[in-house]
């Protein structure tokens, strides 16, 4: 089970955090700080896994963003790398060549997409098509509401 996922920039700025185990804000901040420092100090060719406290950290860098997951000792490291990759693919498909700015300005979307992929720290849906379908359905609901609102505004509804 995934304990948490962090997205942060090369400059060490946290862009997204998702916690699947309960910690106080103070502990979360401490963990985040520690991990960002540790990972940023590692060299590119180094192993993507590291033992950390009683879990394993799996991380990968995509352009200027680091994606970092903490998993339990018996969880599959390689497949966790692919959970990260699948998430990146989903963001990429949704935003159209995603960049760090998309995640900054649309952080709520990034959360919604993640919630379709993972629930309670376990993978919910591995099919890219199905996740995108679910997100699209949400967007349609929103657009309908927006259209309703516009119609209401001009007195047509």
């Amino acid at each position: 089970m995934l304990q948490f996922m962090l997205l942060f920039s090369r400059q060490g700025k946290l862009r997204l955090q998702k916690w699947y185990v309960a910690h106080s804000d103070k502990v979360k901040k401490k963990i985040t700080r520690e991990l960002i420092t540790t990972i940023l100090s590692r060299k590119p060719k180094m192993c993507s896994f590291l033992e950390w406290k009683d879990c394993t950290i799996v991380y990968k860098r995509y352009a200027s963003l680091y994606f970092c997951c903490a998993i339990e000792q018996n969880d599959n490291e390689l497949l966790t790398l692919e959970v990260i990759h699948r998430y990146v693919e989903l963001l990429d498909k949704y935003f159209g060549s995603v960049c760090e700015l998309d995640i900054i300005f649309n952080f709520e979307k990034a959360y919604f997409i993640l919630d379709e992929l993972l629930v309670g720290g376990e993978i919910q849906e591995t099919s890219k098509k199905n996740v995108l379908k679910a997100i699209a359905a949400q967007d349609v609901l929103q657009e309908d509401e927006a259209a309703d609102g516009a119609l209401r505004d001009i007195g047509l509804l």
Partner: protein
Amino acid sequence: MAPVRGDGMRGLAVFISDIRNCKSKEAEIKRINKELANIRSKFKGDKTLDGYQKKKYVCKLLFIFLLGHDIDFGHMEAVNLLSSNKYSEKQIGYLFISVLVNTNSDLIKLIIQSIKNDLQSRNPIHVNLALQCIANIGSRDMAEAFSNEIPKLLVSGDTMDVVKQSAALCLLRLFRTCPDIIPGGEWTSRIIHLLNDQHMGVVTAATSLIDALVKKNPEEYKGCVSLAVSRLSRIVTASYTDLQDYTYYFVPAPWLSVKLLRLLQNYNPPTEDPGVRGRLNECLETILNKAQEPPKSKKVQHSNAKNAVLFEAINLIIHNDSEASLLVRACNQLGQFLSNRETNLRYLALESMCHLATSEFSHEAVKKHQEVVILSMKMEKDVSVRQQAVDLLYAMCDRSNAEEIVQEMLNYLETADYSIREEMVLKVAILAEKYATDYTWYVDVILNLIRIAGDYVSEEVWYRVIQIVINREEVQGYAAKTVFEALQAPACHENMVKVGGYILGEFGNLIAGDSRSAPMVQFKLLHSKYHLCSSMTRALLLSTYIKFINLFPEIRGTIQDVFRQHSNLRSADAELQQRASEYLQLSIVASTDVLATVLEEMPSFPERESSILAVLKKKKPGRVPENAEIRDNKSPVPNSHAQNNAQNNHTSSANNANASSDLLGLSTPPANQSGTLIDVLGDIYSTTNGNSSVINNSKKFVFKNNGVLFENDLLQIGVKSEFRQNLGRLGLYYGNKTQTALQNFVPTLQWSAEDALKLNVQIKAVEPTLEAGAQIQQLLTAECIDHYVGAPSIIMSFRVNGGAIQKITVNLPLTVNKFFEPTEMNAESFFARWRNLGGEQQRAQRVFKAQQPLDLPGARNKLTGFGLQLLDSIDPNPDNMVCAGIIHTQAHKVGCLLRLEPNKQAQMFRLTIRSSLEAVTQEICELLVDQF
């Protein structure tokens, strides 16, 4: 940047841009505070906000929170959004709740109500939003509120697949908080049968849930094994086109495969049914075969997904540990990965091989890769990979390759990363001990360890080498010779001096025949290190010297001179001072026979599990790779190994505590140390550490007679006392801890003339000057004439460096209970007396709070120390303590009974005292109350 679909929030985008444009941290904080003030006023204002505005502000708050700032309002507005009929508003409300609301929030009831409504919705998107929120928060309240709905959603025929997926994982999350949420009975089979579901997404989510349920209740869910094997079999034989979107980079359903393989690791063996077992082995073989096929894609995603399944299959093969051919094939496959160019694969291969090394079927196969693994340890660029290589070498070590592996590890240790040195030292020490056929080799290895990585050699390691040398006669001469040579290095580690000191003190005579290591040479060599060492090591060396006096009477004079040296005899360190003066006296007064008896060779240590192993386990709980023979119980030494292995970690660490403390008895002197060597200040080492703090122990001395009574930066006062009938004798020891003499040093007794009629105390005068670092003794005698209250105290007045007079007042341990004589009696006479002393004036009772944690054995010790006889098997409740004693005064004898009843639940004690004299009853009660 792509235009955002759905409805964007312009205000939010502007705010985010503003923040990004801030040139400094201060500017950012200013902008944020402005925004927070704005939002607060909007929320507080009279004008009702519409949903869109609420959503926008809540979203801004969320953004501010994610920047790392604390948010303490807006929760209510977010909860309001949950019941909005607009999906986009509801969704933001849920997001805020899952990120910001903690499980104890007062709002949880409102949130639960909104979730209830959404779960009833006909729109699956709303239902999923609610389920995801439950899974995010996962509190006990939620588990209780939804324990009916969610299992129904999961197995109902009407539920849509997407909802089933969320429901399965939501239930899993709640199950982790609250395991009784899962209904049993017919539900079990319905949940298991989700493994047969048409929809791969449902099966994947359900497998995670079932895995957790099986861990809790393997028997009930046993039916899942054959279903899981069938499902796995269908996946591994599928072509990558069969599974459409569940194929990931040409690998069919890697997530589901891994989960099924994990699920099967919960049973051992996975199944009794030979058919199912056959099919499972076929699956595993197919996975191994596929690993040999050329890759279908050059992308790393393809190889990662494929190898993720392969590693999980290997985990299952190792877990089953029954099919020799599969184990050997797995080992060969991992061997190939050891030279793969992907660091990740090399790391995982080393890790997996550690487990293979502990199986009897594959241990030999792993050993074939020894050279590559040694290269990995030396050459890998990433320290975490090197660490894995070290772990694997440790795991694959056995009698046949021990010498080579230990040597390679020693070589590597010289350049190894600081972060892994300590652990490597432990591993080398364990392997050397375990596989030593020739103990000279073992001694060489440990001395090398100290030479190469002395700073990382923990106490346990050098304690252990001494235990082994002492227990094995054949190696003692060699050890003495080798350590003597090692000490000749110009710079040698203090740990080497410790081992050297100890071993030469015991066995220096074995090499004394050689003129190059004659007694005087040995002594001079050790003493040349003396001044560079810490006081712990010096104390050890002083013991070595007194042992030398016994072994080599011819150098006695030289050694006595060393004891006499000012720096020893008057050392500021009490332990050194004490050892120097006592050893000196011993060497002067004791006859040769007495010396030989007192300083006899140490007896053998009881054989026990190496305490080092316990240290290693403690360092990395759950992560210590096993060394093959540890598991097989084939270990040659020590003899008791097999039994000890059977015990769990817990006991072995308890062993370890004993093992490490009793070797030298330095850090924690045992209470009964004062056998041959009179140990006035027995626990000085344990109390002198906090130098700057003032220690005033008088309260504790109600229960004991000897120890440190008082200590501050300047002065230490120790006491030793003994009592017989109504007479007592006290020795007070004043130690000057400073570098200058204390002048006008006058201790004055504080005890009124009236009190003196009941307790007569005589005190001898002392010299008015207490030299730097010196200790003087003052004798007191006490005679108890009649019962009394309180205790005399002593006022120390003195000057330091001609400064103002300082005064210190210390209560003397002369309370009336010191004149107790413990009295044994049987139940009958106890109860007879108890009833006789039932009068109002004879009883006293107090109830008081226990010290944390409630310590019953400690309380028993205290009562004995107080001077009473503990009478067991008188009170029907074994926790209650019942005591009796007689106070001796010249005028009369006062019988006294006590009962102390603990109340574990309330963490309280009830104390009852009965005695023939009211004043005594009250005083005893006062002395004991609040002391437990």
